């Protein structure tokens, strides 16, 4: 017996129905920039900024209407996504569409991407002023955002791959924007090839899933096996064979490893810093690297089943995420380039997201994408602001920075806010997402990984303190303090006032500002920084679990409910909590459910899971913590009797101040220890600590390992590539030298002998006579045909097509 599935009109709206327009706007704008950009007064940047603003308005409208839709639906009910499909390609029963799949996850990421892209483009107006490929930069940047937006609204895997690959291409173009320097173009190639290595997994995984799921999805839902909706419900339907879904999930996860810079394919991400800073900011906060995490979040049921998430033992995703957190955070300690510190911090934060997803903490992981985008974009743009205005385009913290807090108060303030957010300090946004991940990972029974997460928090606080100290405290060094500083010490005030005016001025005469010594950047740079810092401070309150359920809006809007819904697609079960309970209490279900629970959870000796699975005892505990929302749905653990599931049932850890206080203490310890070390090392140059890595063998070994990035680059470039490429080249060479040359030489000598005989006997006597006769005939014909051999390709082409036309004509005549 199943609760009647009735269609209830969910609220929709124009923006929600037309979310597919969002990627189309920047895509069109890309062509406008390419074709007309150079002729425009602002060299095409106006198209880019305008299109991103347009996309932002549309995304905002869609988000607002989605919230209306969720609020209009009964409590706890599954709010169906707004799906639209047009046929893109069809033949012989295989077809796939193009369209939109808009749900909470989609609108959240759309909003972030459009927002960050807009700010980054505004920032680039100033940062890349006068660049030699200004127009092309904006074209690539716009197409890049279009690719990400397209991937986010994608209705099916093919469309998702399309967006994914557009991003791969644009990241190549943007990282190698200043390709005149060899290092930059090498970094671009490295990024491209490394992510391509992962992309093989994307294609393979999509193919595996399509061929396993197509039959079921076509029969049950009437959609193809590429459809995201189809794949999600198929994964939870009990239809997929264990091998197929496991292989598919692993293949897709390899793609996510490549794109999201997870261990062991993270090596391209720090090198990608070769691109202009706005690109790093966009790439690292909301687009490219989030794509892999988004893929896992999007097809979560597939990974949930395929990787056996919440199955009681560590799975592939959580292990990779955990390793990534720690190794990337450690690498951040030995970097002297400020952007590379941030790059490794991104890798580490992506590790948190992956670990969260792998441990069943779907919502905190998605929320971490959301908050991370703001503070990481702010940090990168801050680093760019420093290099733009103070350190002569250098990113070396030890050589060219230091003491900048006096010169760049706005950059310093926004940097500090974002750093606190990144470290997860209480009222800042990172706390509400990162701490939730750590908390939920522990709650779901992955205790080892909770400790990994806490260790990561400690390391994050420590390396960010180091970077902040080197950049903003102490004495100015190198370019920040260089000869320019002394030169203008007498008229420093004059130039600074001058700049304050310029800040609100047109900036036209502002080209060589780097030569004026350290100063604050113009408003095109500081305004995006301030906006992002505000969000880094405030965005966490969208899902502030500590203050009770009323504050958990993000959860309400974004997390899909694990209700069993009718397979007719749009329909959903009325009544939510109450009715669904009734449904699972009916005879058929209740005979199945308890036995399943008993057999399932007994061998798995993890108490949290056992508690949350056996409904009765767990309920009071859960209800006290997070209201009445928690109820058991069969989705994820069992096959639904009737209808389909769109999302697995996952649980949320009840928030406890004691746990939060513990992680705060760990972060504080990180701050203090790192501050102490920084002062000893850089300020007082304490003999005990300076040069410790050279004196102590174990530390020296660790340092060397980190400086050489665990020798992964050596492994890839010297060992793997060489071991594959060199033997092939060697084998081909020896084949060439020995076999081919031998054959050629042998043939040559034989031919020479034969030719000698032929020459003496046949040629001289028989042929010559004939030749002389033919020769004079050929001479006549040649002089007649010579005009045809004009040497002009076009005329040859005309002859070719003329002959072909005559041939075709003859063929027609003969055949009829």
């Amino acid at each position, binding site marked *: 017996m199943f609760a009647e599935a009735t269609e209830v009109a969910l609220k929709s709206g124009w923006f929600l129905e037309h979310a597919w327009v969002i990627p189309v706007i920047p895509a069109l704008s890309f062509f406008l920039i390419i074709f007309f950009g150079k002729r425009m007064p602002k060299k095409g940047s106006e198209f880019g900024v305008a299109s991103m603003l347009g996309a932002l308005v549309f995304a905002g409208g869609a988000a607002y209407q989605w919230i209306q839709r969720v609020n209009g639906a009964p409590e706890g009910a599954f709010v169906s996504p707004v799906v639209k499909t047009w046929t893109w390609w069809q*033949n012989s029963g295989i077809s796939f569409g193009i369209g939109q799949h808009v749900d909470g996850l989609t609108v959240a990421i759309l909003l972030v991407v459009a927002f960050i892209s807009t700010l980054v483009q505004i920032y680039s107006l100033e940062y890349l002023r006068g660049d030699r490929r200004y127009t092309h930069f904006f074209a690539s940047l716009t197409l890049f955002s279009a690719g990400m937006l397209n991937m986010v609204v994608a209705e099916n895997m093919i469309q998702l791959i399309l967006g994914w690959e557009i991003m791969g291409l644009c990241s190549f173009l943007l990282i190698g924007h200043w390709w005149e320097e060899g290092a930059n173009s090498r970094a671009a190639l490295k990024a491209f090839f490394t992510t391509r290595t992962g992309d093989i997994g994307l294609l393979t995984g999509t193919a595996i899933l399509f061929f396993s799921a197509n039959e079921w999805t076509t029969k049950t839902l009437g959609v193809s096996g590429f459809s995201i909706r189809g794949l999600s419900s198929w994964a939870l339907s009990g239809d997929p064979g264990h091998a197929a879904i496991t292989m598919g999930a692993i293949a897709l996860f390899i793609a996510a490893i490549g794109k999201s810079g997870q261990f062991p394919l993270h090596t391209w991400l720090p090198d990608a810093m070769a691109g202009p800073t706005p690109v790093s900011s966009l790439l690292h906060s909301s687009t490219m690297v989030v794509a892999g995490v988004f893929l896992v979040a999007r097809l979560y049921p597939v990974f949930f089943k395929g990787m056996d998430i919440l199955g009681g033992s560590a799975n592939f995703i959580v292990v990779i995420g955990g390793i990534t957190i720690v190794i990337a955070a450690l690498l951040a300690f030995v970097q002297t380039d400020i952007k590379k510190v941030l790059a490794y911090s991104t890798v580490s934060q992506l590790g948190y997201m992956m670990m969260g997803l792998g441990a069943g903490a779907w919502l905190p992981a998605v929320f971490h994408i959301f908050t991370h985008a703001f503070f990481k974009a702010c940090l990168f743009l801050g680093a760019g602001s420093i290099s733009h205005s103070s350190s002569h385009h250098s990113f070396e913290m030890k050589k060219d920075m230091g003491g900048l807090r006096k010169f760049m108060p706005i950059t310093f303030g926004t940097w500090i806010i974002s750093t606190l957010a990144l470290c997860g300090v209480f009222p800042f946004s990172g706390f509400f997402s990162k701490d939730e991940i750590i908390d939920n990972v522990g709650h779901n029974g992955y205790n080892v990984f909770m400790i990994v997460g806490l260790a990561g928090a400690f390391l994050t606080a420590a390396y960010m303190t180091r970077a902040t100290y080197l950049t903003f405290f102490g004495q100015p060094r190198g370019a920040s303090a260089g000869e320019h500083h002394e030169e203008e010490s007498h008229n420093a005030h004059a130039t600074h006032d001058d700049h304050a005016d310029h800040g609100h001025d047109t900036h036209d005469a502002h080209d060589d500002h780097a030569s004026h010594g350290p100063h604050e950047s113009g408003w095109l740079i500081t305004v995006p920084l301030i906006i992002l810092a505000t969000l880094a401070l405030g965005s966490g309150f969208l899902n502030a679990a500590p203050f009770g359920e009323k504050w958990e809006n993000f959860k309400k809007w974004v997390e899909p409910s694990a209700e069993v819904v009718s397979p007719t697609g749009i329909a959903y079960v009325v009544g939510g909590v109450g009715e669904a309970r009734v449904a699972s209490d009916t005879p058929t279900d209740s005979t199945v459910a308890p036995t399943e629970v008993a057999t399932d959870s007994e061998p798995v000796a993890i108490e949290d899971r056992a508690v949350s699975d056996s409904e009765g005892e767990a309920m009071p505990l859960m209800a006290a913590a997070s209201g009445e929302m928690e109820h058991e749905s069969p989705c994820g653990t069992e096959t639904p009797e009737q209808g389909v599931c769109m999302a697995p049932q996952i649980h949320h850890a009840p928030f406890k101040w004691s746990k939060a206080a513990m992680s705060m203490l760990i972060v504080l310890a990180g701050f203090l220890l790192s501050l102490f070390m920084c002062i000893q090392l850089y300020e007082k140059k304490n003999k005990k600590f300076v040069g410790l890595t050279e004196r102590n063998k174990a530390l020296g070994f660790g340092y060397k390992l980190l400086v050489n990035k665990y020798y992964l680059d050596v492994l890839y470039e010297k060992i793997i590539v060489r071991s594959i490429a060199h033997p092939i080249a060697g084998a081909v060479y020896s084949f060439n030298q020995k076999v081919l040359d031998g054959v050629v030489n042998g043939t040559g000598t034989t031919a020479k002998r034969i030719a000698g005989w032929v020459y003496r006997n046949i040629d001289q006597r028989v042929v010559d006579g004939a030749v002389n006769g033919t020769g004079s005939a050929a001479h006549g014909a040649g002089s007649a045909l010579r005009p045809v051999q004009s*040497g002009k390709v*076009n005329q040859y082409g005309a002859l070719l097509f003329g002959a072909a036309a005559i041939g075709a004509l003859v063929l027609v005549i003969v055949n009829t």
Partner: protein
Amino acid sequence: MLVNQFLILAAVLFCIGVYGVIARKNAVLVLMSIELILNSVNINLLAFSMRNGSLDGHTFALYIIAIAAAEVGVGLAMVLLMYRNRRSIDLDELSEMKG
């Protein structure tokens, strides 16, 4: 069926391509015209494949796309070399093949 329209489109594209090959002096434009010809053939293949309801035409078309990409690669490399050696890509100035 819409086969006729596809065939007409293909024929038009083919003619434009042939015109380009014969009349244009710029080597890059000639290459582009060759692409047009190849793609008109692709459209023909797809149109007939659609009419016959088989995948054969699609397979051929995919091969042609791949080969066309390779061909353009070689062609552009030639144009590049030509430009390096002669500072011009005007086909009329090229008559080394004159016999």
